């Protein structure tokens, strides 16, 4: 089918947030080396695992070996069997115990993942979700790269209320569908014009801008004819048109920058979910490539989503460990099953962190320029929504200090959003308050 209108470019660029316009930052795309006088990119990732981790009440013996938390007490990190894959990354990781989002407390463990990156009070004062931490950063700094952000998941789409398949949201009621097909992700990142000539792409964009203008005009006229309450509803629509207009502009700007020629060597883009390790690593590799080429700096990756009985995710534990049950069930099991599952996840994440660390950038490496959250809003089998498992990695060059387990339990309790505030500030997104934050976390920054 022919693809003529703005649609073609929309398809390719829809990942961009509603970013402010600015001249493209081009030279940063040189592989790992910053141009003279150019600041190194500052990046942020939020990644998510579902169905809880192993967190026994008993802290000894097998229970300790397979506890998701690498060591018993706060202080310098030591690594148990479950967290062993991170042992070589000791100076690049921190574990933060006792953090959570107050807004997720009443949602139930299988649903609080909705607000992991947003901290929205969905079951309370807010009727819907709210802006996620990556999108806030993208709003401020997204214009510096071809794509403001990259939103990945293993199931794709947005999911429904209480069973999100994405971590990212532009704002209330505007979830960003996650992408989950490696080939599609690759194409959108590195082959955005689908083989079309640049002139045609530009002509299409121009036409699209005019059409959107007219759509805007007509919609405003409709809006004026509605009752007050309903006008607000249509405002949502107008906002969406405005966002699309901005994307058209942004895309046009970027057509003046040459595309990088990235080949697919070493990537198995046809990988199936039936091979969770291959698949997960492929997703990590794509994320790595997007960073390495400075195509984007802010990303979310929903490695696992709750309520996944309709997808192959449900069988991961079976494919990986031969566990005879659903992925959901393994979290309800005792030390070895649940712990081995955590350990497998740790291996995949450590693979990614090491890849970043082994890639030089400026005077250090990519990991030092990238702060990575890895955790869950569904701590363990009791479906509790308190005390998330949270690991923060990287960003040493952005001011993060690692190597310890920090406890925020009891009277040291602070909202998880305090960490978000610290992360946002570290990636040049000046922030005083995010969601229910009460300040900026100072322990690791």
């Amino acid at each position, binding site marked *: 089918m022919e693809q003529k209108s703005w649609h073609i470019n929309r398809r390719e660029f*829809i990942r961009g947030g509603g970013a402010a316009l600015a001249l493209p930052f081009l030279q940063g795309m040189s592989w790992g080396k910053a141009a003279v006088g150019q600041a190194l990119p500052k990046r942020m990732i939020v990644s998510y695992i579902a169905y809880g981790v192993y967190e026994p009440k008993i802290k000894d013996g097998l229970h300790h070996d397979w506890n998701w938390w690498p060591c018993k007490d706060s202080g310098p990190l030591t690594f148990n069997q479950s967290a062993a894959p991170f042992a070589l990354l000791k100076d690049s990781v921190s574990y933060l115990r006792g953090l959570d989002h107050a807004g997720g407390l009443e949602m139930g*463990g299988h649903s609080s993942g909705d607000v992991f990156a947003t901290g929205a009070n969905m079951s309370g004062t807010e009727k819907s979700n709210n802006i996620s931490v990556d999108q806030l950063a993208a709003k401020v700094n997204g214009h510096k790269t071809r794509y403001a952000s990259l939103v990945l998941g293993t199931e794709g789409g947005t999911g429904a209320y209480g069973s999100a398949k994405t971590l990212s949201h532009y704002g209330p009621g*505007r979830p960003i569908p996650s992408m989950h097909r490696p080939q599609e992700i690759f194409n959108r990142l590195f082959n955005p014009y689908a083989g079309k000539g640049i002139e045609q792409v530009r002509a299409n964009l121009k036409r699209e801008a005019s059409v959107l203008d007219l759509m805007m005009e007509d919609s405003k006229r409709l809006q004026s004819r*509605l009752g007050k309450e309903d006008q607000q*509803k249509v405002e949502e629509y107008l906002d969406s048109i405005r966002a699309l207009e901005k994307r058209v502009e942004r895309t046009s700007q970027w057509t003046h920058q040459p595309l990088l020629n990235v080949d697919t060597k070493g990537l198995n883009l046809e990988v199936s979910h039936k091979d969770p390790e291959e698949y997960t690593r492929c997703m990590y590799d794509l994320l790595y490539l997007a960073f390495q080429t400075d195509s984007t700096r802010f990303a979310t990756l929903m490695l696992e989503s709750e309520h996944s009985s309709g997808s192959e995710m449900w069988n991961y534990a079976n494919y990986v460990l031969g566990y005879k049950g659903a992925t959901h069930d393994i979290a309800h099991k005792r030390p070895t099953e649940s712990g081995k599952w955590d350990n497998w996840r740790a291996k995949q994440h450590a693979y990614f962190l090491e890849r970043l660390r082994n890639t030089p950038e400026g005077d250090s490496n990519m990991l030092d320029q990238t702060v990575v959250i890895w955790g869950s809003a569904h701590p363990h089998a009791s479906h509790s929504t308190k005390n998330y498992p949270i690991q923060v990695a990287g960003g040493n060059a952005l001011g993060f200090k690692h190597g310890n387990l920090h406890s925020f339990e009891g009277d040291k309790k602070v909202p998880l959003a305090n960490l978000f505030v610290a992360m946002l500030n570290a990636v040049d997104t000046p922030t005083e308050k995010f969601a229910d934050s009460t300040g900026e976390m100072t322990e690791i920054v």
Partner: protein
Amino acid sequence: MQFYSLRTRIKVVLESVSVFLFLSGVASATDISSGKFGFESQIKPFFKRYCIECHGPEKSKGKITLHSLDGDLAAGQESKRWELILDALEHEDMPPEGEENQPSASDRAATVKWIESGLRDYVKKASKLPVATTTRRLTNFEYQNTMRDLLGFELELSKNLPVDPDRPYHFHNTAELMMIGPDQLVRYKEAARKAMASAIVDPEKPEVHQTITKWEHGQPAKNGLTQAEIGVYHGPGVGRKTVGLKSWPKTGEFRIRVKASGNFPPGFQEVALRLVMGTDLRHDSGSGIYQEVGIVHLTNTPDNPEEFELRGRIENIPVQPASKHRNKIRPPSITITAQNIFDNGELNDHRKSGFDDSWSGKAPRVILELIEFEAPVIDVWPPEHHMRILFESPLRGTKTDEYAYEVIKGFMTRAFRRPVDREEVDHYFQIYKIYDAELDTLEQAMRETLAMVLISPQFLYHTVIDQPAATKLYELASRLSYFLWGSMPDQKLFDLAASGELNDLAILEVQTRRLLADNRANSFVENFSTQWLSIAKMKTVNINHDLFPRFLYTVHLGERRGQEQLFRPSIRDYMHEETVGFVSELIRNNASVMNIIDSNFAYLNEPLAVHYGVSGVQGLKLRAVPIKLEYHLGGLLTQGAVLVGNSTGSAPHPIYRAVWLREAILGDEVKPPPAEVPALSDSAGDSADDATSIKNLLELHRNKESCYDCHVRLDPWGIPFERYSAIGKYQPLVPKDKVRVRGFNHQKDKTFADYQAYLRSIYTEEVDASSRLPHGPAVDGMMKLKKYLLKERKDEIVENVVRRFMTYAIGRELTYRDRFEIKKLLKLAEDDGYKLQNIIVLVCQSPIFTGTKS
């Protein structure tokens, strides 16, 4: 015991008192003077005496407090809270049962009356204020149907749209949750362009693609069947015939002709032939990438083969992409698979041991002599759906711009579901000019232009224009058709809106019944019932195949565990159809709402009948079947969709079932357990190991103080369901405490009958299904529960159904402001014997629905 039965009697007396008050309006001796004085002198002391201890400054159970109310109902600030209090007092939910400090019946009635009349005054005053949001976007269900009716053919378009907000026991169309963001708009645009690519064709007649395959009925093949025969379908490679399409067009309608009959062993009269298209089921490992084209229920014999025709759109058929295999390139392919989906309820066995090739001889066979595929269908060219948009006109060819203007206007009028004004059309005409300047043909430019119409807010939203009433009746026509068809109005409704006749309540009634009688109402009943009864989850409950080896048809290899595949419809598909069909039947027959509690019929086909132990039902078509007492069926409560959906897959789950009963049937809102509540088994501590029945476990759980308040009002509703197993069968016996049931085991059980014998040998104990209902009597089992509900809970049940219909119909939650209209409607329904179809008519005539309130 004495205490409780006494309370029941009080309740009955009290109810008749309050009904009396409500109807007659006669002041009782205990009338409390209205306004501030009455509040200070009597209401406040009442609260203080009975409520504040738990709902005050010290404790705020359920997050409700009463001490801060100032008694000024007319201010309208606290109306929501007042309505909650009113409901709790009126239904005697509060003070909680067992609390010794209870108000007298007359005090309670007087307080109820005081709140109610205060609320009524406020609602009267507030009716001039703006109501909640009514503008909402189309749900995906409505979008799909609207596109079908607008374009005149069915394209699958909603698959890539973000899903609608989905909360258990809530409808998907709640206005305030239906939001649109840029990504959604992008996807709407993709869908719109896809639709227009198919709707508008290019002028030249396309090439017709054909594939014809024949089989000889005389020629013997394997297993004693002939070449044309298809035995029972029981796996990707067995019991089916396939045809690979030689070629096919990108767009267009296709037609498949089959010549078929049935070969029936003694005792069988019917066999179902099903055609699916997409990837070859043999290659596909179960991701279900194929589309059902249709099912033919064959009753004709081999000496009398008949031709059947099935149609569909080629765009909807998934294509197996090209692949490279050992340096050989396989081109993209589409396969038609013809299946014999005969199912007598005994074939299900994911271990394949329950059936083998010998089944093919014993069961009815399909005789398939011919499959003829043809696409696109060009009986007329251009097709009707094209002509509907680019209609014949003398303007065409000479005055292209004027023609284009008329085309756009015509399409917009239908797409916006109301007359359009000049300015609106002008906007889209300008858009057309932009495309027209760059694209070669009228068809190309029109596709792009009309695609933009399809992403306009006028198309995507249900809107209520605030200005003079010119569009009011069109909006009403839409509200009616979206309620009862999930789609846009048809010409008849547009005409009645144009003529003003829709204003007439009698005509509105005729239209309501006409729409309900139309086939399109089926999808309303399905969409409504699925969400109202929250039965979709039934299909994802992980069934324990070891305990229930014969329940589901799943295929072993490479499949997702616990999920049946689309190789063949499964019993869970039929269970879904059972519940939807049952509700349809009630509406069709204008039967009483109370049939949802108990009925003298069930809605079954053969596999369902076998599952429930009902004899004498043959074939796969569902129908109303009279039931006997010993089937333990009737109403919704015993239907598989409800029982399986609210089980664990291994065992019944009384809490899920209790929540279901209270939410879906009684209309209560059951709050989810607070975070940090230990799981059922953990809360019982070590003693959990000894508690083998869930009932015991619940008792332990309830004994924890933190769990008590909620569970004491919840669990008793679920216990009477206990004689229905996880897969929805009546199962009055269970094993003794501490006896572990082993699953089906090939070493130990040679056949399924052996396993059944084993189960019988250990299932020796009567199930304990007795509990005392909150504010009610002790009931033992389902029959007693139903009796109680029919007798004592009629008002709540009917009110719940009425509220569900209304909420669904208007796309927003009802508030205290709708309370008195609903009460009026309930009174009318009661006088009329709670007839379901009449209730739907009443809903459509209600000022809440017609929007004539102010």
